[in-house]
């Protein structure tokens, strides 16, 4: 059920228990959208979304990002084909969840070794998504009409990957506030294995291709509130040697 907050509080105020303000509503109701209408967003709207990214905070004001807007259906289809191809190659060697016992006996130790080497890239959710993609059951780029690539300038201050995340989230929230849908696609990393895509998309030193975001008109509209795990938050209010107080955030 599309659960939405009904009333709105004005921005710039706080009172205990007040309804969500419009900014909070966009933040809380944003869902990753993976099904789009085929027509692209108007160029003006894409530019407006990019403005939200251009004004994101970054360490040392280095702005370690470079945007590539991909609107061409042929390029997106070619990216999809090649990403699926590399997913198939990976999963041929690593996917132990399908096939027989012999296959499992060979692939499972190999997969666990690779998971140790690439724990973030081969964590359970991406691993299983790669398996679905390799079996032709899920798309990589969700047939999105617009893909915005955020290339990370590795010479940024401190941790440029964080700046990329902040910049991208600004764009995502701006898009949802205007009624568009978006989805972060980290699997753009699959294209790093192709020199031709690194060359075409400008992902060469100092740029690193880690993240992309798909934008488009959602079909169906799927924004709304969801439940999430209660978070244990440590509050430190007393002296430096006092024990912390733990609070259940959210429930």
């Amino acid at each position: 059920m599309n659960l939405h907050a009904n009333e709105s509080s004005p921005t710039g105020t706080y009172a205990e228990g007040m309804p969500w303000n419009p900014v909070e509503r966009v933040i809380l109701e944003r869902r990753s959208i993976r099904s789009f209408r085929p027509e692209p967003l108007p160029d003006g709207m894409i530019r407006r979304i990019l403005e939200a990214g251009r004004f994101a905070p970054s360490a040392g004001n280095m702005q370690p990002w470079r945007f590539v807007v991909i609107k061409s259906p042929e390029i997106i289809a070619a990216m999809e084909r090649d990403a699926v191809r590399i997913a198939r190659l990976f999963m041929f060697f690593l996917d132990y969840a399908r096939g027989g016992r012999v296959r499992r006996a060979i692939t499972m130790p190999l997969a666990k070794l690779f998971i140790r080497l690439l724990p973030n890239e081969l964590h359970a959710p991406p691993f299983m998504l790669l398996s679905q993609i390799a079996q032709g059951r899920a798309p990589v780029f969700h047939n999105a009409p617009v893909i915005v690539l955020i290339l990370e300038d590795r010479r940024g201050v401190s941790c440029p990957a964080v700046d990329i995340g902040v910049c991208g989230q600004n764009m995502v929230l701006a898009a949802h506030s205007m009624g568009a849908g978006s989805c972060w696609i980290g699997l753009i990393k699959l294209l790093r294995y192709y020199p031709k895509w690194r060359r075409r998309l400008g992902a060469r030193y100092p740029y690193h291709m880690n993240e992309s975001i798909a934008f488009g008109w959602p079909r169906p509209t799927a924004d709304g509130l969801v439940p999430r795990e209660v978070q244990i938050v440590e509050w430190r209010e007393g002296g430096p040697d006092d024990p912390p107080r733990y609070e259940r955030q959210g429930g």
Partner: protein
Amino acid sequence: MIAQLTLLDRLRVPTYDDGSQMRYGALVIDRSRCRECGICVRICPGACLVTDTATKMSLLNGTTHKGKSGVPRLDLMKSGEAGCIACFDCGTACPHGAISLAGHFNPGYRFKRIAQEDVLAYPQRY
């Protein structure tokens, strides 16, 4: 209060299709409320939902016949696990409120969540 990661946990990589090492999201689909529109199947991030006649790809490519696409169910791996990450995009998008979430997603061993409880809660206005 905050769970600990033991040395054994840190060393062990969970087997992803083993339910004793991975806790997957538990979706409950209310058959009486479902109108078989296929929205949830279309938007599931991991293509974990299917019906008897439709899959995510068949709906996205338009190869499924128009009209009712059947009551969704979790598509199980060979081991019987579902692969659901409890994002609840399906439940949010369902126009009829036919989907609810009975359990959250928590991988085991080196990937286990440390600062979260098993309880799921909607955003709370403080």
